[in-house]
């Protein structure tokens, strides 16, 4: 119990830190925020339930007014802004990513975590994001899809990195990668 709560809190803090450290930029020097990669990592490492709880905890802190989103953003306004759908979709993205890593055990972890991050962190997340944009911007579905397509390459890159990081973490700290821990000793 204590370890689960500590991991959930630490990963929420990790998502915050990934968005706030200015020097972390991804490949090609593009300043894409690593924060959404933190969400994929959260699901892939902590598993479905704990990963989603951790992201939920992070969003709760953003909602009550802490400037934890990349660029020091925070507050309730973000949850009615056009990108609100993406924020609200984060816990679901982490859940789906975690669920796939937990259940698909026959392939190498790198591959599984990559595919899980693509499905959770892109397919599921964009579904929420697109609904949010549809509500706030009053556009048609095809217009909105055209709008978000620009972000897909960056997010694919993040999903691949998240997959590789998950496999590396499983080697470095096997006991802490809860998505692959044995069910018997899971609390």
């Amino acid at each position, binding site marked *: *119990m*204590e*370890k689960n*709560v*500590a*991991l*959930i*809190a*630490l*990963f*929420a*803090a*990790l998502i*915050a*830190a*990934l968005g*706030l*450290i200015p*020097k*972390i*930029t*991804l*490949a090609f*020097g593009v300043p894409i925020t*690593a924060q959404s*990669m933190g969400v994929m990592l959260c699901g892939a*490492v902590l598993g479905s339930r704990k990963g989603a709880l951790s992201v939920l*905890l*992070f969003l*709760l*802190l953003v909602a*009550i*007014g*802490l*400037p*934890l989103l990349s*660029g020091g*953003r*925070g*507050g*309730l*306004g*973000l949850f*009615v*802004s*056009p*990108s609100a759908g993406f924020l609200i979709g984060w816990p679901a993205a982490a859940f789906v990513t975690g669920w796939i890593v937990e259940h698909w055990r026959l392939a190498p972890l790198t591959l599984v975590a990559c595919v899980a991050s693509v499905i959770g962190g892109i397919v599921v997340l964009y579904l929420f994001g697109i609904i949010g944009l549809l*509500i*706030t*911007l*009053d*556009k048609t579905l095809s217009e909105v899809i055209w*709008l978000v397509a620009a972000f897909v390459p960056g997010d694919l890159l993040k999903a691949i*990195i998240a997959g590789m*990081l998950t496999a*590396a*973490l499983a080697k*470095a*700290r096997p006991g*802490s990668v809860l998505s692959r821990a044995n069910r018997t000793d899971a609390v």
Partner: protein
Amino acid sequence: MISLTSPVRTKAHDWPAGLKLAGLCASTLVLFYIRDPAMHFGLLLLVLGLYALPGRRFMDAGLRQLRILWPFALVVAVWHLWSGEIATGATVILRLVSAVALANLVTMTTRLSDMIDVLHGLSRPLRRFGLRPRVLELAIALVIRLTPVLLQKGTLLSEAWQARSRRRSGWRIILPFTVLALDDAEHVAEALRARGGFNTQECH
């Protein structure tokens, strides 16, 4: 840790946080039902008037928070100028700015401790589903305390990289960073267990 609460004390700081949040929900719903751009323009002026009431410093801080909206406003504006539906475009942009401005207003005038009290109240009915308010509050406190710690460790890591290499660290630094966080979690869990963990009596 800095919060987004306004440094300028306003009368609204003393209003009950739950009431402000309920009011915000209601007014956001109303905003999404109004379709008339002239009415939206009036409402936006009203919201900006609320920002102006506590004085110059408050207004500057508030308007700074709204700057994140300009890319969306630009896309919508260009889109509707091109398609010719200018009234719809104006409605969308005005509604967007009002909704976000109102929500930020609540954030600016509500202290973190008051928000946490609201959470405490909201989490009480969830106890039936196994959520313990004390665990939730402890988790919130942990994140608030540990974010600056991780931030500092991450900055040190990237400085250490830069001392050794002329190339950017890029994403590679995230692995040791996450390992550090996992180890911290281990230590925090041990410390919590050593102090009796979550099984001690709840006191109110």
